[in-house]
């Protein structure tokens, strides 16, 4: 079972991102779970979303997990939230930041012995450039595809087009750009 924990602020699209990922993965014959732990449910409040992916039906309903991937889509939460909670030796971190990896890690003591498992990408900058709004969920999924090798970029882009089908073409195109850029830029 693969377990993913998203650190986000309400309104940044972590739940949508987690459900979109679940939707795409489910079409490949896998079993998925996507849920969230809402904070005070106000826009901007810190919250967490979760994914589980497995070959077998997922029957555990605990919120507790030892994540395989930690996705931080808000730049501030890397500093203020406990992003390394319940992590494993193998947990990989993808963190949204305008800093480079060394600058980021030097400021977050909890990450200092995990440098080889930390990846950075500026999802906020990318989404502002491409979509025009600070909605960092889609670029984070692009970065996750690169780091996890879960799916080929082209397959993932096609799948995302289907998930986003209800939106105008302009928005779909902008999301495709955002995903592609994050895929290429994550370090």
């Amino acid at each position, binding site marked *: 079972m693969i377990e993913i924990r998203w650190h986000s602020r309400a309104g940044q699209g972590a739940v949508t991102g987690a459900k979109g990922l679940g939707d795409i993965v489910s079409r490949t014959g896998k079993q998925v779970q*996507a849920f969230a732990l809402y904070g005070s449910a106000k826009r901007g409040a810190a919250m967490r979303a979760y994914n589980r992916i497995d070959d077998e039906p997922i029957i555990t309903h605990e919120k507790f997990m030892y994540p395989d991937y930690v996705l931080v889509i808000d730049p501030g939460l890397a500093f203020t939230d406990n992003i390394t909670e319940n992590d494993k030796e193998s947990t990989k971190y993808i963190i949204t930041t305008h800093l480079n990896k060394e600058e980021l890690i030097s400021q977050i003591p909890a990450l200092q012995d995990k440098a080889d498992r930390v990846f950075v990408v500026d999802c906020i900058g990318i989404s502002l450039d491409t979509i025009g709004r600070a909605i960092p969920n889609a670029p984070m999924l692009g970065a996750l595809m690169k780091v996890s090798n879960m799916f080929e970029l082209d397959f993932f882009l096609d799948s995302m087009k289907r998930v986003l089908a209800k939106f105008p073409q302009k928005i779909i195109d902008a999301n495709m750009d955002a995903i592609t850029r994050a895929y290429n830029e994550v370090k």
Partner: protein
Amino acid sequence: MADKMELNEVEVWDGNYAASQALRQAQVDVVAAYPITPSTPIVENYGAYVANGYVDGEYVMAESEHGAMSACVGAAAAGGRVATATSSQGFMLMLEVLYQASGMRLPIVLTVVNRAVASPLNVRGDHGDMYAGRDSGWVQIDAFNAQEAYDLTLCAFKIGEDLDVRLPVMVHQDGFVTSHTAQNVYPLSDEEAYAFVGDYKPVDEMLDFSRPVTYGAQTEEDWHYEHKAKQHKALMESYKVIDKVFEEFEKKTGRKYNRLEQYMMEDAEVAIVALGTTVETAIYAAEQLRKDEGIKAGVVAPRSFRPFPYNEIREALANVKSVAVLDRSCPMGAMGALYNEICGAMASTPANPLVTNYIYGLGGRDFAVEDAKNIFREQKANADAGYITTELQQFSGLRGPKLAFYEAKRS
């Protein structure tokens, strides 16, 4: 004629969306609602289906949950297929009218997204509201995940509307843990789902002007008791129809439901009895304990909370040494309700398992796999000792000093 919706073989739906799709596919005539977290999306989605032409029905916005269920009673008495959703405080406000609906034998379907009851205010899942409805005369069916919330909502119409039952039906799912967790769901097509549920056959409908009827008559000590007894009998015997509907559903989908679900009970030495998502988490824990620690653990779960599967419980636990009954509602001055049901069932059998009560998960407190394992391990200790090694009622996952009540009497 309503438009059809194209669904994929596998969808990723949360419990709310799954339940709302079942309401749409059953082509519910009237949903009267006063939306409340976490069940809001069920009625919200139904309203959207009506607005977008996917249901030929009516969404009625009520002024309270009391008003919502009252409007449901009116619409059902008029002769429509009727459903709504609620949770927690809304359920409590509906409670008075729940008794009216069942007493009038109106097969309304209520999708209850279980949530804790204030005070203190809390929007997350526990079973306080579900328990409050247990004497209200409704069939109460419990879903453990989103797929089941969909399946059992379809079944609910068929159970409640059966002429041998004609009782309202609640389909319960856990707030957030089911209602807001998206999982793989395998839906039926609109045609298959509607063919399964069937056309609604009204009984004594008020809109039949050629046969005027009185609903809600007053009966005092001369008649009230007989009517209540007749209603109780209908609910007690509804198990036959529930079994029949579950069989038909299995033929259609391959998914098998039982009024009492049993997992790994063939050779189980210790068992957890629970409701809701906890059932699946406990199965997950039992599988690991069997593999890693050699504990023969099993899980028993009343799918049908009302009518209570009394005989099935007695059979399922006949050969178990120690049983933990988990109540996700604070009984406030007594043992948990489910514990009492289980002990009542086992008291009239030669089997004499050691039965203890665990209160857990109040207000959405996480019930982790490790919590379930610890409970199983305590049952194993009881089984090995041959007596209850703990207090009879314990609190699982509670901060602070250990809270427990009552010692077992051994002499």
